[in-house]
């Protein structure tokens, strides 16, 4: 197999190639390192690449293969994590100059579990500053979308989306507070899962907002997503909020029929005046695919969902600003301008406004749970428009209306699941006429990731989108 071809495999295919000795872990790691060296100077997916560490781990894995050791479904697979997860002895910047010298002495639980699953860490991936989104000038390089270099790859797990779309890692774990994993997945035409809140440990994952932060598997395929989730999910005594619910084999539901499952299209998101017409049409097309697979499709109303962006910012930004009070008082000058002004504005929000947003959040949760009694899976676009140009994202705001259009609107699509503690996944859902990716979002009941992945897999296998390769990935 040609070296680049190894990097175009999914994580599951890579593990299979290693187990059947069609490829060695060393060959696979070398293939990825070679691509990173060739492409990443332009893409800025990585903040830190770990060639020596990865090659050493690959040689060790190769020895285990030759000895016939016990290999799991991700054994030998090269992965990368968002630079928000602590890594022992390795720089962990959180995408901010504030942490430019931060070298942890402990691993995040997610990093430990990925290593226990036999994966090989290639490096640490770029992100929006402090995992907030909205960064105008990323301190460690502006990440570029492999589908169109002048367009954003989404935020805040930008590097994870870019690295997967450009085949610079086989799988990744990003983080999703209000859409930070699903947004880049949609922009880069890869898979991004926000698991149920508390499903995955957040120990030593630098926090953005404690009630919403979730470690997010990001992968090339739905099957890979099931494997990564199983590897990292489960109770962690170091994170007392993690759930003790057993972790199922998420791969077991893949390939099962979705006939008879009830699918609900969220009317308020799909019929919003400002959704891009080609994105809206892609969702309608996806519903037809699901109907063709035997699902029962209906419209469902969640009246408050269109305001989820406002509720999310009212609660999450305020929490984030409170948690960064010391930074805002003494080190704000070291932040990117957009991060600084966003946190400063949130720091001024009166308690009565925060309280109202918190109450609205509870009402939104009630409406979602009511909807979930009528359907099994909710469907919408992940983002209401295709990935915008960098120049649009980084342009200064021209007034409060501009803030509303560019900042709040899209956050309703992904923020609603963060607010309600429910799982949601973004999968490739088509392309615009300009060949820009469109993300399809599916949501489910608490801890129903197996069903979510079942439906996502059925759609993925019935459509060609996941098989397309980003133009820059061929470079």
């Amino acid at each position, binding site marked *: 197999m040609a070296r680049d071809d190894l990097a175009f495999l999914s994580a599951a295919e890579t593990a299979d190639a290693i187990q059947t000795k069609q490829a060695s872990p060393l060959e696979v790691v070398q293939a990825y390192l070679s691509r990173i060296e060739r492409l990443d100077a332009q893409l800025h997916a990585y903040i830190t690449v770990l060639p020596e560490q990865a090659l050493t781990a690959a040689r060790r894995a190769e020895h285990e293969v030759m000895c016939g050791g016990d290999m799991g479904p991700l054994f030998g697979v090269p992965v990368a994590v968002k630079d928000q997860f602590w890594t022992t002895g390795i720089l962990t910047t959180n995408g901010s100059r504030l942490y430019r010298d931060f070298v942890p002495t402990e691993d995040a639980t997610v990093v430990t579990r990925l290593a226990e699953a036999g994966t090989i860490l290639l490096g640490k991936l770029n992100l929006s500053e402090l995992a907030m989104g909205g960064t105008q000038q990323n301190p460690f390089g502006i990440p570029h979308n492999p589908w169109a270099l002048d367009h954003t790859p989404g935020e805040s797990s930008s590097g994870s989306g870019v690295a997967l779309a450009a085949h610079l890692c086989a799988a990744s774990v990003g983080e999703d507070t209000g859409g930070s994993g699903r947004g880049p997945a949609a922009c880069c035409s890869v898979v991004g899962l926000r698991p*149920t*809140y*508390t*499903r995955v440990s957040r120990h030593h994952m630098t926090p953005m907002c404690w*009630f919403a932060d979730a470690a997010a598997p990001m992968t090339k395929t739905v099957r890979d997503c099931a494997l990564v989730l199983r590897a990292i999910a489960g109770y962690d005594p170091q994170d007392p909020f993690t*759930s003790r619910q057993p972790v199922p084999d998420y791969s077991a539901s893949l390939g099962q029929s979705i006939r008879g499952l009830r699918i609900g299209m969220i009317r308020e998101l799909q019929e919003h005046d400002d959704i891009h017409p080609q994105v809206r049409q892609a969702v309608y097309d996806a519903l037809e695919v699901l109907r063709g697979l035997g699902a029962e499709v209906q419209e469902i109303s969640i009246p*408050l969902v269109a*305001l989820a*962006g*406002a*509720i999310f*910012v*009212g609660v999450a*930004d305020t929490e984030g600003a409170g948690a960064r009070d010391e930074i*805002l*008082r003494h080190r*704000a*000058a070291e932040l990117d*301008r957009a991060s*600084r*002004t*966003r946190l*400063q*504005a*949130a*720091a*001024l*929000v009166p308690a009565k*406004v925060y*309280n*109202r*947003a*918190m*109450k*609205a*959040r*509870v*009402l939104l*949760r009630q409406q979602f*749970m009511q909807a979930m009694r009528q359907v099994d899976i909710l469907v919408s676009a992940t983002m209401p428009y295709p990935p915008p140009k960098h120049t649009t994202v980084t342009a*200064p*705001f021209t*007034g*409060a*209306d*501009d*803030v*509303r259009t560019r*900042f*709040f609107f899209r956050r309703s699509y992904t923020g609603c699941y963060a*607010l*309600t*503690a*429910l799982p949601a996944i973004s999968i490739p859902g088509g392309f615009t006429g300009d060949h820009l990716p469109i993300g399809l979002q599916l949501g489910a009941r*608490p*801890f129903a990731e197996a069903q979510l992945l079942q439906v996502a897999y059925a759609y993925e296998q019935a459509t060609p989108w996941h098989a397309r390769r980003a133009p820059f990935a061929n470079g």
Partner: protein
Amino acid sequence: MAWSNADRVRELARLVGIPLIEEEISEVADRFESLMREIDRLMSLDLADIQPLTIFPEEE
């Protein structure tokens, strides 16, 4: 005399002890005004019987 948005933000920041950069005050004010306007849209909701609880997934 009515305060401008920038004046209001400047005063709020002083009260909470957050130093602002003078040339960025209009941007902070735009973000703050936009957030307040969005939250204003929640004013029509009847939230009297709802408590601002923390949500955990196991709860119905």
